[in-house]
């Protein structure tokens, strides 16, 4: 029996980056880091992923402390949610990685060609809980 869906279709709209999402992580000694991320990838109703590009501090924090929080905003529903996450692993190959890599390379068609679009990894997270921000 599958778990109750945590991510609803309304939330997916909030992951597209119309309003940039915010990702908060915390180091082992309690120093927090907050960054904007362009897109959160919907994996299934229990999992999300984000690309591991230019996120050195976030990456360090997740290695020390796997818990993170993402805040997403669905402008068309005028809703915000907090996703309580647990970092599972960084994937550098496989279906999820290919999908994310393809999106990045497709964007390259609209951007000057001197920018490196190589995806470093797909950071897979389990959604522990979702909190509606009122």
């Amino acid at each position, binding site marked *: 029996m599958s778990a109750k869906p945590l991510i609803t279709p309304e939330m997916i709209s909030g992951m597209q980056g119309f309003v940039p999402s915010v990702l908060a992580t915390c180091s082992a000694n309690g120093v927090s880091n907050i960054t904007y991320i362009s897109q959160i990838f919907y994996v299934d109703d229990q999992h999300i992923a984000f690309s591991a590009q230019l996120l050195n501090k976030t990456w360090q924090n997740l290695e020390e402390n796997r818990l993170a929080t993402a805040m997403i905003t669905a402008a068309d529903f005028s809703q915000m949610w907090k996703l309580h996450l647990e970092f599972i692993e960084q994937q550098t190959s496989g279906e999820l990685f290919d999908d994310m890599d393809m999106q990045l390379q497709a964007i390259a068609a609209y*951007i*000057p060609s001197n920018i490196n679009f190589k995806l470093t990894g797909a950071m897979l997270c389990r959604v522990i809980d979702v909190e509606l921000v009122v």
Partner: protein
Amino acid sequence: MQSAEHELIALQNRNELIRLLSIEFSKPANLQEKLQRMLQLLDENFGLCHTLLLLPDERHEQLTLYASRGYTDKTTGISVKFGEGPAGLVAAKKRKLRLVNISRKRSYFTHEPAVVNNPLPSLPNVESLVVLPIISGNELVAVLSAESEKLDFFKPEDEDFLMTLSQLIGLSIQNSLIIDQLEQKVRQRTEALEEQKQALQQANASKDRLFAIIGHDLRSPAASLQNVGELIDFYQRKGDNDRLFELGGKIVKAARNMNSILDNLLSWSITQTGDITISPEPLDIYQLLEEILDNYADIAQSKNITLLFPPADSGKVFTDRNSLLAIFRNLLSNAIKFTRPGGEIRITVSTEDKTVLITFCDNGVGIPPEKLAELFSIRDRKSTAGTSREKGIGIGLIIVDELVRLNNGKLIAESEVGVGTKIGVRLIR
């Protein structure tokens, strides 16, 4: 509850749409018509106003744009490599691609003005993009690309629905490809049959002509021989030995004439059935000419024709011996035939870098320009009597032409009525 009802209605509508589109897509049509119709239906039913349909090449290395809708540029025929741009990526990976919020995503990387690194048509202010691989039986059949200037025009559920639809589209495109291939094969087969028909008609006409020639021209020497035979019988019974001896020359002449005709008929039939074997070898031109001149010297002498031929070291030619003998025999006998008594035939040999040109030049009656053009064609061919009423069957030059062609050579003919004729054969040294 209300939401579930809406979902149910939406599902029913989609099912109905799939049913209608299945009917449309299954209609037989050629590829171009079918692809344009598909884009039209996607526009009318889904509001996909800016769409492209691209087909992969056989080696699956590049995509070619076959149909587009909503773009001002007429750009069909443009190709992109697999892995190049969104459509190329989808083709290479056989995975769907959905991009939304494109301008925002661009701004994360650069603030430079938008560029499009893609030869395919694209909206200048594109914000959403869906590119789907159209797959049938695990094989990439096509790539469908749809763009919009709206931020989030393509919802994930639309994309899933289009993926369902893509199976129908794939089958339909494959059917059209098969129809196109069949039509192409029918066209090719029809053309081949038409060519065969023409070749057969030509061969039939040649055969008819040959029979007519045999029927008409071979009868004369045969009748001559018969007459001579009857005269021999008559003079023998009469005991007139002087007249009997005179008949010897006539027998030789009639037999030689018949032999020459039979030689040519045989050569011609061999060239027509394709049974001839060409074995090129280095040959001494002078030796071969001497052999032929020996055979024709007495005929030329009987017409008081002077034969001028090249010096003994006239050169070598790399060709088939039997072919060259037949060529020389026919050109010389023709020249003798159409040169008036007391005339002259000059044979020259000139060598160039890789070829040698052998010419037979007479100061005979010449050939009118309209006949010169048809000199080497069997069509409507009639034999022409020589200056001493020599007879032939009119296929000597046709055989020459055929043999020269088989030996990778070239024939040159120049003539002026009343002045003479020059026939040249250019062969490989």
